[in-house]
C-alpha cells in the first residue's frame, strides 16, 4: 500500500470518513424501517392488551398464542370499548390512549407531576374488564405488562413482558405457567389494596389458595419476581383512586 496508515492526518481522516459513512448508513436504515417497526409495536400492544383480557388463541398448555397480527386491529376495536386517561379519580376519554408511553407517565405521576395514566375498558360476553398498563424494573432492564380486573378487583388475566431478563430464569415471567397463576387472585385484602406478591416458599405451589394475594415465585429469578410484585403494587397505587369509584362489593 502506498499510503502510510500510521500518519496522524490519515488516522483522523479515516475516523471522520468512517463515522460519516456508518452514521449515515444507520440513519438511512433506521428511517427507512421506522414506519414498519412502529406498526409492529402498535400491533404488539394491541395483542398484549387483548391477551390480558383473555382474548387470545391459546390451545392446550404452555403456549402463549396471540390474536394474529392480520386481524388484531379489528379484534381490538371490537373488544376495547373505552379508552380513558386518568387524573386522580376522574377519567376522560382519549383516542388511542393505549399508545401512551406508560413508563414515562408513571415516573411523572410518582414525582407528583401531572400525568396521563391510560386505562382501557374492554367488554367480552357481557362482562366488563378494566385493563391497567404497568411498568417497573426487573433485574437487567424494564419489565412491563397489563393486568385486567373485574369490578370486584379480581384478576381476570395478566400479560408480562421484559426487555432483557435472563432466558430460562427471569424471562419466564412471560410464560403461561407463571401468568396463569394470577388469574382469580384478588388484589384486595379485606378492604385495602394489597396487590399480588410473587412469593418464595408460600406453601401453595399449585396456587389453589386464591385469597392469599400471592403466587408462587420462579426459581432462580428472585429479583425479577420482586420486580413484578413492586410493579403491580406501585401501578395499582396510582390507579387506586379511580378503581375505588368503580369497585362494587
Amino acid at each position, binding site marked *: 500500500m502506498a499510503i502510510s496508515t*500510521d500518519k496522524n492526518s490519515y*488516522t483522523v481522516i479515516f475516523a471522520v470518513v468512517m463515522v460519516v459513512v456508518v452514521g449515515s448508513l444507520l440513519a438511512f436504515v433506521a428511517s427507512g424501517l421506522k414506519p414498519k417497526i412502529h406498526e*409492529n409495536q402498535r400491533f404488539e400492544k394491541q395483542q398484549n392488551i387483548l391477551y390480558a383480557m383473555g382474548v387470545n388463541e391459546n390451545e392446550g398448555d404452555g403456549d402463549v398464542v396471540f390474536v394474529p397480527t392480520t386481524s388484531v386491529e379489528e379484534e381490538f376495536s371490537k373488544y376495547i370499548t373505552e379508552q380513558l386517561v386518568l387524573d386522580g379519580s376522574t377519567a376522560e376519554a382519549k383516542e388511542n390512549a393505549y399508545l401512551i408511553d406508560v413508563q414515562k407517565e408513571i415516573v411523572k405521576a410518582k414525582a407528583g407531576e401531572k400525568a396521563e395514566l391510560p386505562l382501557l375498558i374492554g367488554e367480552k360476553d357481557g362482562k366488563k374488564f378494566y385493563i391497567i398498563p404497568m411498568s417497573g424494573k426487573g433485574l437487567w432492564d424494564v419489565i412491563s405488562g397489563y393486568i385486567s380486573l373485574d369490578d370486584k378487583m379480581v384478576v381476570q388475566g395478566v400479560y408480562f413482558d421484559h426487555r*432483557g431478563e435472563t432466558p*430460562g430464569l427471569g424471562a419466564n415471567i412471560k410464560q403461561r405457567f407463571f401468568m396463569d397463576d394470577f388469574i382469580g387472585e384478588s388484589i384486595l385484602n379485606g378492604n385495602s389494596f394489597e396487590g399480588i406478591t410473587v412469593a418464595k416458599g408460600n406453601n401453595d405451589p*399449585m396456587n389453589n389458595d386464591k385469597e392469599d394475594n400471592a403466587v408462587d415465585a420462579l426459581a432462580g429469578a428472585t429479583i425479577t419476581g420482586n420486580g413484578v410484585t413492586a410493579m403491580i403494587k406501585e401501578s395499582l397505587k396510582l390507579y387506586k383512586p379511580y378503581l375505588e369509584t368503580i369497585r362494587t362489593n
Partner: protein
Amino acid sequence: MGLLSKKDANLILDPLADNNPITIQVLGICSALAITAELKASVVMALSVLFVLSMGNVVISLLRNVIPSKIRIIVQLVVVAALVIIVDQVLKAFAYELSKTLSVFVGLIITNCIIMGRFEAFALGNTPGKAFLDGIGNALGYGIILVIVGFFRELLGSGTLFGFKVLGDPVTKTGLYSIGYENNGFMIIPPAALIVVGIIIWVQRSRNRELIEEA
C-alpha cells in the same frame, strides 16, 4: 471437503475441537454462562454470532490495508456495532417475534470477546475468503459448546428440551418424576454453566493430552 483445500478446511474444523474458542482459547465465556439455561436461547445465540462473526471478519479483512493501526480496535468495534444494529433493525421490521427473542443477545454479541479476538488475530492479516471461513469455524466451535451446555442445563435443571417436557411433568408427577426424580435447581443458575464447561474442558484434555497447557 472436496470444495476446500486442506488448509481452508482446517480453518473451519480446527475451532470445532482442538482450537475451540471457549474451551481452548477461553473466549466468550461470559455469554456461555449467561444464556445457556435454555437450549433454544443457546441455538439462537450461536446463529447470531455465526452471522455477525463471518460478516464482520469479511468486512475487517477487506479493510485490513486501510485501517490505521492506532485506532484499529475502535474501527473493529464500529463494524460489529453497525452490523448488529442493522440486523436488529431489519429483524424488528420484518421478523418482529424473532427480534423480541433476540433482544437480550444483541448487546451480548457486541461484547463477545470471540468477535474482537478473531478480527484482531485473523481478519486483519488474511484475505476475505479465509477470514469468512475462519469466522464460520469459530462461530460453530462456540455454538457447539453453547448447545452442549444448554442441553444439559435445560434437561437437568428444568426437565425440558426446547421447552418440551421430555422427562414428564414435575407438577402432576408423571414420567421420571413419578419415581421420585427432581429437577436440579442449581443447573438453571449461571455457576452451573461454569461447571459444565469445566467438565467439557476436562474431557477434551484427557482425550488429547497435547492440549494441556504447561504450568
